C-alpha cells in the first residue's frame, strides 16, 4: 500500500513537472514570435502619450508580462501565476482572465466529445466482437471493411461531408453555432431541443470518425483471445458457452480499456476541426481564434489546458489499470 501511494505521488509530481516544462516552452515560444509584438505594442502606447509606467501596466494586462523586464523575472512571474491557476489575461477579450474564458469554453468541448466517444465506443466494440466471431461470413467482412473505410476518413472530411449532406442537400439539421441564438438560454424546452439539434452533426462526425478504430482494435483483440489456450481448455472442461463468452469478453476488452481512458484525455484537443467547421465555442475553436488574433495568453492557456488533460488522463489510466489487470499488481 505504501509503495502504491509513493508511486502515485511521484507520478503526480512528475506530471506537474511536465506541465511546467511545457508551460515554459510555450512561454519561450511566444518570445520567438517574429517581430516582437509586445515591444511594438509598448512602443506604440508610449508614442500615444502614455507614461512608461502606464504603458508598462497596460502591456502587462494585455500580454501578461512587461517587455522590459529581464526575461528571467518575466518567467518567474509567469510560473508563479500558473501555480496559482492564474493563466494571465486575454488580449482579445480585453483583459478578462484567461482561466475564466477557458472554463467557459471547456464544457462545450466536453459535451461534444464525451457523447461522441461513448457512442463510438459502445457501438464500435459491439461491432468488433461480431466481426471477429463472424469473420469468415459476409457480415463480418462488411463490418470490417466499413470500419476500415470510416477509420480512414479524416475528421474534417467527415465533418464537411455530413455538414453538406444534412444542412445543404437535405436541410434537416441546422448548421453552425451551438444553439439558435434567438432562443433564450435556460432550462426550457426550445432551448434544449435547439441545443440537441445543433449538436447532432458534430457528435455524429466525431463518433463516426472514431467508430472504425474501436471496431478494428476490438476485432483484433477478440481474435487474439479466441486463439488462447485457456479458451480451448474451458471448452474441454465443459464450461457453459455463456461463461466462455464472458471469459472472452473480459480478456478482449482489457487492452481497450487503456485506449478508452486515454481517449478521454485527448478529448480536449481532439475536436479542433469539428468545432471549426460547426462553429462550436469549445476549446479547439478557442485555440484557433486565439491564434488568429495573436492572443498569446489565451493561446498558451488553451494549449496548456489541453496538455494537462492528457497528462492527467495518462496518470489516471496507469493507476486504474493496475486495479483492472491482475497481472500488473505491485
Amino acid at each position, binding site marked *: 500500500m505504501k509503495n502504491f501511494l509513493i508511486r502515485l505521488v511521484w507520478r503526480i509530481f512528475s506530471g506537474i513537472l511536465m506541465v511546467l516544462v511545457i508551460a515554459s516552452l510555450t512561454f519561450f515560444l511566444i518570445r520567438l514570435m517574429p517581430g516582437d509584438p509586445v515591444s511594438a505594442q509598448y512602443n506604440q502606447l508610449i508614442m500615444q502619450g502614455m507614461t512608461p509606467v502606464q504603458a508598462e501596466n497596460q502591456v502587462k494586462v494585455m500580454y501578461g508580462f512587461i517587455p522590459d523586464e529581464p526575461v528571467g523575472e518575466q518567467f518567474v512571474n509567469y510560473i508563479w501565476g500558473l501555480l496559482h491557476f492564474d493563466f494571465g489575461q486575454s488580449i482579445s477579450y480585453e483583459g478578462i482572465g484567461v482561466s475564466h474564458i477557458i472554463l467557459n469554453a471547456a464544457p462545450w468541448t466536453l459535451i461534444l466529445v464525451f457523447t461522441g466517444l461513448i457512442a463510438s465506443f459502445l457501438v464500435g466494440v459491439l461491432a468488433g466482437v461480431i466481426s471477429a466471431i463472424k469473420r469468415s461470413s459476409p457480415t463480418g467482412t462488411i463490418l470490417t471493411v466499413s470500419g476500415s473505410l470510416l477509420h480512414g476518413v479524416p475528421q474534417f472530411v467527415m465533418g464537411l461531408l455530413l455538414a453538406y449532406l444534412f444542412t445543404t442537400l437535405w436541410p434537416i439539421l441546422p448548421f453552425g453555432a451551438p444553439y439558435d441564438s434567438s432562443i433564450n438560454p435556460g432550462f426550457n424546452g426550445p432551448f434544449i431541443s435547439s441545443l440537441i439539434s445543433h449538436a447532432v452533426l458534430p457528435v455524429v462526425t466525431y463518433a463516426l470518425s472514431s467508430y472504425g478504430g474501436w471496431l478494428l482494435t476490438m476485432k483484433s483483440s477478440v481474435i487474439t483471445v479466441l486463439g*488462447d*489456450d*485457456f479458451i*480451448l*481448455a*474451458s*471448452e*474441454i*472442461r*465443459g*464450461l*457453459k458457452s455463456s*461463461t466462455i463468452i464472458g*471469459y472472452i469478453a*473480459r*480478456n478482449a476488452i*482489457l487492452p481497450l480499456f487503456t485506449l478508452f481512458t486515454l481517449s478521454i484525455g485527448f478529448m480536449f484537443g481532439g475536436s479542433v476541426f469539428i468545432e471549426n467547421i460547426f462553429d462550436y465555442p469549445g476549446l479547439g475553436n478557442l485555440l484557433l481564434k486565439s491564434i488568429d488574433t495573436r492572443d498569446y495568453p489565451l493561446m498558451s492557456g488553451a494549449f496548456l489546458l489541453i496538455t494537462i488533460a492528457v497528462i492527467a488522463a495518462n496518470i489516471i489510466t496507469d493507476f486504474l489499470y493496475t486495479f483492472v*489487470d*491482475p*497481472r500488473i499488481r505491485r
Partner: protein
Amino acid sequence: MSDTSTVNTESAFKDQKQKMAISARNINVVYATPTGDIPAVRDVDIDLPKGSITGIIGESGSGKSTLIMAIMNAVTKPGKITSGSVILNGENDILQLSSEKQRKIRGKEIGFVFQAAQNSLNPLRRIGQQILDLGRAHEVNDLRELIKYAKRLLIRLGLDADRVLASYQHELSGGMRQRVGIMFSLVLNANIVFLDESTTALDMLSQASVLEIIRELQKEKNLTIAFVSHDIGVIADLSERIEIFYAGEIVEEGKTSEVLASPKHPYTKGLIKAIPKISGDIDAAEPLKGSSPDYRTFKQKGCLFYDRCPIRTNSCQDSRPELNITNRDHKVACFRVGANDRD
C-alpha cells in the same frame, strides 16, 4: 439350448463392453490445408479398459493428440472428424449425442490435463472462482463441498490449497500450474482422464513427482488413463498398455512390457534402438532414418512407413497393412512381421 447359449454370449459380450471405459471405432480426422486434405487420424480403433493406464506414443504430428481430441469431439479447426464412434462405458456413442450432452460429459466423465506449457486457466480470474464456474457449469449442487474437495486434492498434490485457490494463474510456477490442471481434471470425479504431453515441459524432478502422483491417484480411484507423449521413457514407466502411433495410424499395440521387450514393428524397433542406454556405448544408439511423414506421404497407396523402413519390400507399396494379432493382445500392422532387418 441355443437360447441360453446366445443369452450367455450376449451377456458375455455386454460384460466385455462394460469393461471398456472408452471404445472408439473407425475414427477418421482430416485437416484441410492449402496443400490438400491431410488424414491426421486414419481408421483408428482403440479400447481403453476400465482402470487401465494406456500410453500413446508417437512423433510430433503423428496424430496422437488429435485422436484424444477426437474422442472428446474437441478437434480444432481446420480439423474435422469425418467418421467414427466412441462408446463411453459401454452405453452411448458420445459423438452422436447433442452438443449440450457432450459438453456435460467433458469435465465430468472425462477429464483432460493439458501440456504444462499451456496456460489452461483464465488469466483474469482466480483459481477458486474458476472452480466455481466449473461447478456451476456441471450443475453441482453443493459448491462449498466442491471447493473442499478441490482443496483436499490440492493438498494431496502437495500444494498450499488456500493460497492456490486465491491466486491468479501468473502467480503460480509451471509445476504448480500443472498440478492445478490435474486437480481440475479430477475435481468432478471423472473416471477417465486424458493427459496430453503433461510432463513434456517440466524439469525432470517435477516430472517424476507428477508421474508419481498420477500413479497414486490412478490406483486410489481406479481411473482409466490415456497418456499421450513422445517420451518413451515416461510411457514405459507409467503405462501398462502401449499404443504406437505413426502417421495417423496405430502400428503396434499391446502390453507395455511385452512390446518394449520384443517389439515387432520396424518403427517400434527403430524407436527403441534410438534410445541411448545408460550402460553401453552411446554410439550404439541409432536414429531412425528418413524424416517424418508429410503431405506427400499420405498420398501413397502402400504402407506409410515404407520410406523409412529397413525391411521393406516392393509388395509393401501395394496396400496398407492392417493390425493383426501376433500373440494374445499384441497387435502389429506390418506385412513383414517376423522378418529381420536386412532380410
